[in-house]
């Protein structure tokens, strides 16, 4: 029997995988993917709660998160392109001129 807990566990695992991707990948695009996964994990939570509570608000929330994720991705892609133009790389570890 699949309960809410299974869904939440999957979400938590996905979220942790997202975290790991952000931490381990140096590539800005991959980091972005990690962040998208984190948002997706949150969305699974929203939809699962929506179903279990019997209210649709959670689904609407999920929809808004998808929209926000899309907006973030658009800006992120622009920043990555700019970074490639200015710094010649998309490796975030190579961009550390600002420090201290």
């Amino acid at each position, binding site marked *: 029997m699949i309960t809410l807990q299974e869904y*939440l566990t999957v*979400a938590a695992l996905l*979220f942790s995988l*997202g975290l790991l991707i*952000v931490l381990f990948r140096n590539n*800005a695009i991959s*980091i*972005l993917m990690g*962040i998208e996964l*984190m*948002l997706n*994990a*949150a*969305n699974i*939570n*929203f939809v*699962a*709660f929506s179903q*279990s*509570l019997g*209210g649709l*608000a*959670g689904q*609407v*929330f999920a929809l*808004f*998160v998808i929209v*926000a994720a899309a*907006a*973030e991705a658009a*800006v*992120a892609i*622009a*920043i*990555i392109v*700019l*970074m490639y133009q*200015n*710094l010649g790389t998309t490796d*975030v570890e190579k*961009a*550390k*001129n*600002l*420090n*201290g």
Partner: protein
Amino acid sequence: MESLIPVGLTDLQGVYPALNLAVAGIVILLLDAFFPMRSKLLSAWITLIALHLSFTCGLHRLTSGMDETFFHGAVRMDPFTHAFTVIICLASTLAVLSAPKYLRLRDCHYAEYYALILFSVSGMLLFSAAEELIMLFLALETMSIPVYCLVAFTRDNEYSTEASMKYFVMGAFATGFMVYGVALLYGSAGSGYFADLPRGAASSPGLFYSGMTLVLIGFLFKIAAVPFNMWTPDAYEGAPTPVTTFMAEAVKAAPFSGMIKLLIVAFGFSQAVHLWMPAFIGIAILTMVVGNMVALVQTDMKRMLGYSSIAHSGYILVGIVASVKLNSSEALASVLYYLFIYVLMNAGAFGILILFSHKNKDTNAIDDLVGLGRERPWAAAFMGIYTLSLTGIPPLGGFFGKFYIFSYAIKAGLTPLVIVAILTSVMSAFYYLKIIVAMYFREPSDPQHPAAFSYEGYSVFLIAMLCFTAFGVIYFGIFPKTPLTLARLAAASLIPAP
């Protein structure tokens, strides 16, 4: 047949300050698309007028004590929100005033700058009005996304690109946590409305407290509390100075509104307070100590002000903790007053940096200011006022801001916290005075060729901004009554008198 869109004109009027700004932003974009003018001053003026309208609307609503909800309770326009409307619009106005000449010097004076600022500010205003989690989240995104772009606005500057990248990565990372927290809170309470959240603690405390923590982390990131502060100095240093001004004030002040509201309305019941308050006290201490300590070794003023802004977040956190502990609107009012003064003095300090920025180079290093007192006594005097106020020297505004916050914190029995705050304040005097020493007492390393201070960043807008901030820091320090009265009015709507 039920009406599909059961909202009326009153709802739109209710969110007028934000709506007005968004419309102005669209107008700017359209104007620029169809009538592209060489000078972008028209856009600047439209921005200023729109901000002014929202400002006056907020002020008027604040004095008239309007307190209503709109859009099915998604937003609540209460005096607390109005106060933040006023502070945010003021801060943004100051940032916009400082922008045109600097952007022209950097060859990136585009109308989009103003549109983005306006979108961001409209997000902030809705953010401070939000009564519901998803509204809060979307407003936060609307506020942040334009800023990611603004940081990289000088597009061929690698520092600014790097700053933007770091700010974005960390910002999106924090957003991920916050959304996850929102999901958990929604799951525990079954609703996104702040007022409904406490019942989540009863039904499923596990979800609730995890959610509370993650949502608060989102806020702590935005206000740059340690250890979520790492992006601040880098982003502040790399961003174009007017954008730094915007970030250090508006983008800094706005998150406090949502955080305070959430802390009091949703997490204000005693069980939750017992959990988050010690954590906040710890964070406040860390923030003050780390912010001030690292600022000591900085040589770049923008970076130093970045760390100092971290430290100031710590002081404000002290005020928030004190006001929740005392459950006193007066204490909360002192937080609002502090934010107001902070906006003024910080904007001024950045304004001076903009005033002396050159065509291809900023004047950011403290060493660049050597001899300013002799060469440009007025600018040096203004800078002196801002720095002294940031240090907290009476009778300037910064002193009273700290004084009020600390005295309420003592009243709340947070004496150890206040001791740390005062000690770190003293520490801060070292690096603020470094600026004054550089301006007045240090001899240029090469006496034959003292630094030439040309007002390349001069513009009427900027001068107006500097005069206003300097005047404000002095005037509202000596006569704190008006802002304090308004702040009390605002705070009383969140913490009703017992």
